[in-house]
């Protein structure tokens, strides 16, 4: 047989959800039948999720893409000569030339989908470990300085400068410090953490090890939600391979431990995540003290989101200035935008800050999946505002969004068409808060229940004007009086729905049905 042709079939959870395993099996079976030499590599996703399963064939010209491929398309692909990169109805030409992909600025996700995620040699060949090697030559303070200088802000949603957190932890005196990675990506409309952990897990590990070198921490925890079994498996395997490879010089050990969540949304809040890591109920802690001074087991702890940590290697490898030169205003670098919900071409788009919402949702996303007009987008997760279609020209920038009463958050964008009932969405925000509140503070625990009841009355048309006033009042109490973002931000979707879509709250009283 001739030299085998390399065929890539993603094993990302999203690809699997639409039959990637079946496609890989069909390609292997068809190749056997035709006595064609094929080597199948299960890579991460390239982020173009609407094309999944996206099969790529390595040719002399580069990687040629076909998708979305179903198992029963496979015989036809062989027939058309896809192993030579020939045309087919599902063909998209070279992957790197697909506009959706070509126009991105892939820094954090530069390697995602290129190779077998657990192939450490391929990781290094594609630029991995360069950040770590640079960091090993630097003083802790210089590493912190580079991260501060890059302008990197917390990608989990809060947007707090990462370097400042690290500086505080570095300055804290303690016999033990910790790096905790918040991988409890519970927000609907987000999957960047998952894609990275499944598609390029070593990047996260490298980022955590650099964080450890920077602040003097020798232990790290990844708190990964139980709803992500594929990411858990990938991270566990990657940690094993990383440890085996023994990449750190003597005296610079870093012990990494993965902890599985147990289905509590609130554990995405950093202080309740710390309590959960200690084996307790995920109840929010009062601040101060901040985790950087008194965090896990009472020790100085850096708590960062997956993408924040996974962005550190490229900053160290290419320099703070390189990273800082992307973006606008005080939003530096790139964000992994996630297009989700009712959108024709959903997926992950890593772009510099400053790209407009319209460019993302219309040019990349291609509008709604249903083909109906866009009515609203919820941005930044369940605690983010609903943004009306009229604001599509907003630039993706922390400050510009804050000024418009919305938040960029982690860059998750859930698109809704004109069939959405915004009063229903506002109700869900309150109901979700009631389900997921940790129960520690009253504005959140009780406020969410009362909020659901008041919206029910509005929907039923009972004293609408008075109840809307009451709802606004309640939201004010939740914003001002809640201990954390759960109760404090739930009013964001509620009030934005009310402000931008008042017609959905203006209900006539329901009359008993006629006999």
């Amino acid at each position, binding site marked *: 047989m001739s030299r085998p042709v390399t065929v890539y079939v993603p094993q990302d959870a999203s690809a699997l*959800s639409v039959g990637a395993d079946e496609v890989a099996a069909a390609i292997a079976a068809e190749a056997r039948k035709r006595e064609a030499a094929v080597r199948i590599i299960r890579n991460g996703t390239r982020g173009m999720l609407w094309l999944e399963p996206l099969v790529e064939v390595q040719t002399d010209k580069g990687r040629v893409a076909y998708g979305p491929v179903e198992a029963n398309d496979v015989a036809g692909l062989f027939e058309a000569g896809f192993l030579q990169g020939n045309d087919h109805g599902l063909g998209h030409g070279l992957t790197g030339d697909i506009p959706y992909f070509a126009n991105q600025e892939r820094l954090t996700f530069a390697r995602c989908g290129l190779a077998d995620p657990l192939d450490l040699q391929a990781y290094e060949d594609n630029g991995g470990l360069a950040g770590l090697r640079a960091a090993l030559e630097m003083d802790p303070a210089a590493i912190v300085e580079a991260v501060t200088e890059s302008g990197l802000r917390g990608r989990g949603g809060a947007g707090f400068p990462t370097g400042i957190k690290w500086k505080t932890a570095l300055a804290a005196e303690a016999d033990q410090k910790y790096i905790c990675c918040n991988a409890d*990506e519970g927000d609907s409309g987000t999957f960047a953490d998952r894609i990275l952990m499944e598609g390029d897990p070593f990047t996260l590990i490298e980022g955590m090890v650099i964080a450890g070198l920077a602040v003097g921490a020798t232990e790290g925890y990844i708190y990964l939600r139980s709803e992500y079994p594929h990411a858990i498996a990938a991270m566990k395997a990657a940690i094993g391979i990383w440890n085996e490879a023994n990449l750190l010089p003597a005296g610079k050990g870093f012990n990494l431990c993965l902890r599985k969540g147990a289905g509590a949304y609130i554990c995405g809040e950093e202080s309740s995540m710390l309590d959960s890591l200690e084996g307790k109920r995920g109840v929010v802690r009062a601040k101060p003290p901040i985790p950087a001074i008194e965090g896990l087991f009472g020790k100085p702890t850096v708590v960062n989101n997956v993408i924040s940590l996974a962005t550190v290697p490229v900053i160290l490898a290419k320099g703070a200035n390189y990273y800082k030169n992307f973006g606008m205003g005080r939003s530096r670098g790139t964000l992994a935008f996630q297009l989700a*919900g009712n959108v024709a071409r959903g997926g992950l788009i890593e772009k510099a800050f400053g790209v407009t919402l319209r460019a993302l949702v219309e040019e990349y996303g291609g509008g709604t999946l249903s083909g109906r007009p866009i009515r609203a987008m919820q941005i930044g997760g*369940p605690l983010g505002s609903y943004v009306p279609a009229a604001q599509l020209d907003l630039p993706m920038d922390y400050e510009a969004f804050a000024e418009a009463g919305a938040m960029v958050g982690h860059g998750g964008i*859930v698109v*809704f068409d004109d069939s959405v009932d915004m009063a229903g969405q506002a109700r869900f925000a309150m109901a979700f808060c009631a389900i997921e509140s940790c129960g520690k503070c009253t504005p959140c625990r009780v406020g969410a229940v009362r909020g659901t009841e008041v919206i029910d009355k509005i929907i039923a048309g009972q004293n609408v004007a008075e109840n809307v006033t009451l709802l606004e009042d309640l939201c004010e109490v939740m914003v001002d009086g809640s201990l954390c973002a759960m109760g404090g931000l739930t009013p964001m979707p509620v009030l934005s729905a009310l402000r931008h879509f008042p017609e959905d709250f203006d209900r006539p009283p329901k009359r008993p049905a006629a006999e």
Partner: protein
Amino acid sequence: MSDNGAPLAADICVRHGNRPDTLIEILHELQDAIGYVPKETLPVIAEALNLSRAEVYGVLSFYHDFHTAPKGKHTIALCRAEACQSVGCEALARHAEQKLGVKFGETTADGAFTLKPVYCLGNCALAPAMMLDGRLYGRLDADKFDAAVKKAETQ
């Protein structure tokens, strides 16, 4: 299980060094092995980790993942969060309830399926999504749901 899992619970605790910070890991392992966390194991775990029973029960009852009674042979977790709502997961939820003859949180009379809501499986670009015994489904509709249920039934 005739011994209510108590010896197994004690064994798992020892394997985790009887460390109280591993309580959630211990409960996961116990539930993976038995299918639920029998209440009879609580005093054993409390003793091993040097915690009060109330503390162990507090953790057990806080997290949605854990349950203290057996569930169906198969678990269907249907996502009902915003991204799935935007493409009609509520209609699918009603279909699932009708098809299985149960409400969310319940188990079918024959013990075959437990239907539960989940708030995000991270498959939001290919919504609606569900997970059936660890297998993720995307771009779900009523027909695909029925086929998945049928496939599980024959397993």
